[in-house]
């Protein structure tokens, strides 16, 4: 199990030095009574579009054409080492007429949605290779295999996709994630350099 360096579990947006000063002053004057003034933010610190939880807490990596052309996938890696796997924006399945209609986790030798991982030590987690199949994504005319992308233990699959395959059409980058994998530090480092950053992926596919 990867005992990774935990840089931060999830730190939030940090206020500017000016507002820290202001907060301090407010506290010195009336520490208890002015709880409400402590809580209100300084307008100058509020960005129009704050970073999303995914942007803030994960490093986003992309694998274009993974094992097959057009099979673009993403890996969101958390500081604690866990990797969220999913379909990237330009995956062919998402471009089809009608989009994704069904998701089936019964691929390879087992039904991935049947796994039961328990305990802190994540016993019973199955080990997969980077090209092991996670699930089958079906459209009106085709189906596509989604793969692990990184070698590691499978902790969880997003079984909501079974009842709501439409999540892949509406938010493949968030609620439509496919699985969570826990790779060993060594296995992650092996593939890290071959991955694209968000900016590079966007450029490559001509998005935005």
């Amino acid at each position, binding site marked *: 199990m*990867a005992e990774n360096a935990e*840089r931060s579990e999830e730190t939030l947006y940090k206020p500017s030095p000016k507002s820290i000063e202001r907060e301090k002053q407010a*506290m010195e004057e009336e520490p208890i009574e002015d709880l409400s003034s402590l809580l*209100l933010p300084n307008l100058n610190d509020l960005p129009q579009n704050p970073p999303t939880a995914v942007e803030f*807490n994960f490093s986003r990596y992309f694998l274009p054409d993974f094992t097959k052309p057009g099979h673009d996938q993403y890996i969101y890696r958390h500081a*604690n080492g866990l990797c*969220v796997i999913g379909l990237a924006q330009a995956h062919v399945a998402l471009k089809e007429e009608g989009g994704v209609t069904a998701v089936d986790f019964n691929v390879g030798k087992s039904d991935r949605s049947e796994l039961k991982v328990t305990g802190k030590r994540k016993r019973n987690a199955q080990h997969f290779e980077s090209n092991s199949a996670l699930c089958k994504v079906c459209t009106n005319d085709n189906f596509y295999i989604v793969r692990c992308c990184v070698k590691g233990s499978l902790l969880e699959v997003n079984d909501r996709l079974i009842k709501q395959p439409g999540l892949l059409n509406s938010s493949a980058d968030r609620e439509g994630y496919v699985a969570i994998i826990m790779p060993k530090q060594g296995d992650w480092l092996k593939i890290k350099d071959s991955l694209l950053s968000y900016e590079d992926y966007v450029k490559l596919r001509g998005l935005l």
Partner: protein
Amino acid sequence: MTSPGPAIEWQTALGNAKLCLPPSHVIRDLLSTGVCVRCIFRLSGIHDRDCYISPINESELISFLEEQNEIECNSTTITNCCVCLGVLCPSCVVPEKSGADLRERSSVNELALLISDMVKGEQYQIDEFSLEVSLPPVITANERALRLYLKQKYEKEQWFKDTFLRVHISVKDTLKLVLNASLENYLAVQNVETLSSSFRIRLTYSHSETSQKLQSMLPNGHDSKKREKGSRENGSSKNCNEPDASAYRVLELIEDQNFCSQFQVPPGKVDKPCQLVVACCRTPTYIGGRYLKYSRNVSQSRWIIDDERMGETSVEEIIGENVRQICQGDGYKFHSAGREDIDVRMLGSGRPFLVEVSNSRIVPSSTEIEQISDKINHTDKQLVGVKNLKLVGAEAWDLMREGEAEKQKQYAALVWISRPLNVDDVCNLTSLKDMEISQKTPIRVLHRRSPLERSKVIHWMKIEKVEGTTQYFLLHLCTQAGTYIKEFVHGDLGRTHPSIGSILGCRAEILQLDVTDVKMDYFD
């Protein structure tokens, strides 16, 4: 220190004691076997302390019993009693700490002096003390061997049949009887018999020579070989706590016949007296209160990864170190009722906490408590604050833990949504009371916590608009203990549902979180 002055007291005391003592031929026998005068007194059930502190020696005792002459003051000549192994003859005890020189200690007062010097040297402030004595099991075996010997030899005699051996006082009790009064004198505080004082003086006696022999003699052949090996390697009997307990158990179970075949009856003489280690320690001191955390860069407990510290400092260190310093303790442990992330402030009522100080040299009074409070609350950087600081008892720990899962917590979160907030949204959220949500273990802690789905309750929510914005608002909410607030706002990729985003039908992000109230009756 002996002085000729109290000779009269001793004479009277001994005169009274004579009634309890066995006939002189028995005393001669005991003395020649190697039993010390004090052991003879205690086996006879003599409770008068003056008898024990009188420096009467063997020949004087004989002459006193047989001729009732005046007693001269001489130190005892039996060293290394075969029963108590020198424990009751303070002139024989060699405190390990005194180093190489074997100083002659001519009375129990010198031992008491040594102990009280140690207590004062450490600068302990005490109101009372308890004396704990730990003796090697071989002394119990010796006692038993002596009793069996006396029984075999004298059971037909009248004096034996009457009361002897039913009245005897243990070595431990005798030592305490003798020592406590002197200690009370030197330390100028009361002794508390039943170990209920927070300040403990522990006397650990050990006798490696006979203890090793005892271990090898005990029935558990293969076990004793292991222990023998262990004690040979270390020499001291300090590592023999487990073997001690089992030795006592085995001794209890052995039948007299069996015992006599294994052990020397009466007990054999020994070359060296016991070794003594004196230690004193206070039971943990507890200081409790509530803390506030004003900084978003201070973790609750010390957080270091790969030699690098996370955050500026920790609540634990700021409070714990200040408490420890003023209590003059050796170390501290910090406990709290729950915790918050490094970037989450703890405001409002504050969070209950407990600091456990080990071996504090002083027990803080309200002045010292105020000192601690001031020190923490008036540092240059106001990172942490404390309130309601006070000295509490050990039960505070349980009180804090009790019902922790039931306690409600209140928060204020700065939320952004992907479209402007409207009136319906506000009504929507504020109308939800005691709403149940389901949270899969958040991804950010999934690496170290079990993958479970936990059901939590959001008791109520209130919206406070932020002037000058349409997509930001302050969400005040009251939830069940153990709820992950950040995940409730952004949904954790749909693994927490419902979430603010799912309820409002848009994307929601959390920018800031503050804990505004931890509802707990205690520590208020």
